């Protein structure tokens, strides 16, 4: 029997329905799991995504595209295939995509995490026969502390820096991580300022009904008023004149990669917080068991190692789907 989903040169493809999920080349119909740039690309004739992803699409790809809005858990059909979007808990609007045809269920997770972040709709378990999962952090060394613990550490570090007369610069991906942080920092400690890229994203998300604290830093912002403040900026702001104008400061990178000492030291930041929007090792293993999938396919991450683990440990047939998704928490944007 033909597989419901395959990988071809354009992306993850459903031959029976003639549509793609998160394609990397321009195609006719594209189902989009979430708004990060390696999953939602320019040039599709028709986009289908969750309602909350639309303002992100407008911001990043531009207005005037043919876009179909979808709600979580509301099935629709393409050529007899039942399709539904389910919360992936990765960022606002992120979805796992479930396909059902002839009694067989496939799920593509996109990027996901199980632990709720208090901002995006929490991950929903979707049982399936064929499970296509990312494995960005698919190694046992990636077992993250709870995010509650990390938020606490971020706040106390900010407090300490403010007391020492330093600004606190948190480097975080503008879409997802930045909001995750902003929703959990203690606004009583001091002022919160935003890099333009983060402020633009926040502004776009207002349309989806989200409000986050923080003032945009513009050319007119008086730098001498920024003292003991928290500044959220994308990783690309490191070592720029923009950042240097905010001295004195201490910098921290917020990313699952910060779990490893080498990654943090390579970044040249003062601190690393392993705050991730992806599943860690425990969460990935939990998801594989809970979906009760009989076939597992792994994409972007440590695919070779993780698929070997899945087939050895669970006795499940596990294959690698070679995709062009890279990790959005990666160190360079």
């Amino acid at each position: 029997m033909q597989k419901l989903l395959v990988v071809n040169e354009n992306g993850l493809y459903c031959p029976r329905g003639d549509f793609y999920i998160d394609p990397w080349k321009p195609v006719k119909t594209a189902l989009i799991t979430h708004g990060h740039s390696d999953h939602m690309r320019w040039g599709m004739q028709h986009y289908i995504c969750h309602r909350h992803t639309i303002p992100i699409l407008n911001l990043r790809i531009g207005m005037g595209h043919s876009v179909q809005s979808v709600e979580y858990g509301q099935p629709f059909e393409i050529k007899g295939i039942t399709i539904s979007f389910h919360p992936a808990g990765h960022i606002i609007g992120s979805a796992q995509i479930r396909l059902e045809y002839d009694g067989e269920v496939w799920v593509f997770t996109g990027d996901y995490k199980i632990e709720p972040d208090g901002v995006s709709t929490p991950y929903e378990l979707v049982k399936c026969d064929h499970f296509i999962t990312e494995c960005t952090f698919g190694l046992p060394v990636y077992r993250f502390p709870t995010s509650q613990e990390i938020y606490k550490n971020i706040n106390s570090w900010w407090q300490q820096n403010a007391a020492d007369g330093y600004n606190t610069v948190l480097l975080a991906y503008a879409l997802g991580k930045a909001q995750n942080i902003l929703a959990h920092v203690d606004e009583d400690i001091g002022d919160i300022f935003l890099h333009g890229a983060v402020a633009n994203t926040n502004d776009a998300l207002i349309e989806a009904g989200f409000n986050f604290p923080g003032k945009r830093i513009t050319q007119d912002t008086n730098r001498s008023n920024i003292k003991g403040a928290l500044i959220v900026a994308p990783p690309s702001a490191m070592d720029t004149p923009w950042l240097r104008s905010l001295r004195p400061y201490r910098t921290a990178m917020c990313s699952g990669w910060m779990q490893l000492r080498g990654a943090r030291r390579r970044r040249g930041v003062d601190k690393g917080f392993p705050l991730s929007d992806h599943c860690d090792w425990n969460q990935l293993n939990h998801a594989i068991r809970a979906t009760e999938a009989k076939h597992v396919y792994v994409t972007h991450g440590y695919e070779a190692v993780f698929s070997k683990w899945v087939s050895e440990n669970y006795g499940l047939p596990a294959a690698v789907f070679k995709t062009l998704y890279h990790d959005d928490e990666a160190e360079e944007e």
Partner: protein
Amino acid sequence: MKDFVALFESLDGTTKTNQKIEAMVQYFQEAEDTDKLFAIAILIGNKPKRPIKTTDLRLWASEVSGTPLWLVEESYYIVGDLAETISLILPPNEEVTDVPLNTVIKDIIRIRSLDHQTQRTVIVNWWLSMSGTALFLFNKLLTGNFRVGVSRKLVVKALAKVFNEEEAVIEHRLIGKWNPLEESMQTMFHPSGPEAKIYLPYPFFLAYSIENQVDGLGEISDWILEPKLDGIRGQLIVRDNHIYVWSRGEELMNEKFVEFMELHRYLPDGTVIDGEVIPWKDGKPLDFLLMQTRIGRKNITRKFLEDAPLVMVCYDLLEWEGKDIRQVPLQERRQLLIELLNQYPVADILLLSEEKKFDSWEEAQVYRDAARSYGSEGLMLKKRDGVYEAGRKRGNWWKWKTEAMTIDGVLIYAQSGHGRRANLFTDYTFAVWDNGQLVPFTKAYSGLTDKELITIDNWIKRNTIEKFGPVRSVKPELVFELAFEGINLSKRHKSGVALRFPRIVRWRHDKPASEANTKNDLLSIIAGTNE
């Protein structure tokens, strides 16, 4: 060891030297005396020997955590640090007890002498009672490659602050391989007169490479110029009718440098000479490699003594008639050295470093550019009226090395690095052409910027041909200019040549692989240096 963990975290968490010094000062003021000495030893790299094979640690970590061994290995490739890998793989511990640093280290030393099964029990017990950074540090000490982000110089600075002493004094106290089990803070830092250790060397004065044009140094006649020889820097001490020879790495080399062991019979007590130990035969220096092979051997056979006899080329006198004369101008120290070498019958093992006289810097430059053909690496420039300083300092001494040899090689294999470079392909193997084939001839690790490393890492991931464990072969496209200090024929290397201190100078974006150098080019460099 809570306070030491906190110290490590603050040292690890900043790149600013002042903050590092502050953190150490605070630790030395607050920690228990019984812990401090162990902390100092670890900070300056005087750490306990690895008590256990790392393969045992991997296996036990695999068993304790229920992670298959192959997955531990794969994780290690990515993390690039075994101690960290093990710490992250072990099951988390909620309840941890704080144990003093000295207890932990004494136990690590004890582990060496236990039987295999007891070793496992002891280590697993520690694993199950520690967490986070403490667990990481414990594993670092177990694997024997513990390094903290502070230089010895910074530790000295911090201790000088704590004891309100000159840095040179502290430097002197810390010299050599002292054993924290046999010392105390009292014996280390407040020794009383006669018990002071007579065998200790002075801190070596080390030169920086000259940064600007030499003509900025003023009149050439104000400087003593000596050929820069390629050997092992050494300090020869005669005190109390004993002889000690120290290397710059602060190792006592008496067992390796047997030639010098009778010198106390000829030289008066209270003599300390600084110089370069080199292999020397028939009136000229031999290749450095010969000495290195000799030093690497546990037992020095008669053949080695005959093939690679050692001498010291002496260039400074630091102590004379029991007096520290480091503050006397170099010109006078050198004069005393010359008289000493003439007066005592030591001419066959102690040679005087030759002073090169040039009328101008231009003339000196001509010598320096051709230095290799005279068996030297360039020139040492020393101010005639300069004092002998402690540690690496600018001003009174400079090294003025001849240009390194370079060659263009093609990147053919890559492997991910360790530590800061973990998970990045940064360890490269390069090849040159030999009859239409690329033959690997050297590895090189250093010389590229972080940005270049990331670009090349990306390129490697996209241009991998094959994977062999942690190593990848890549399309032979990228060309790099490599510099090295020496080159020799070698039977042990596939290409037939061995380089000394190879490093990457730059990425030759302008050159296609076909224009890289050939094996013949390497052979003709060898022919050129041996002329």
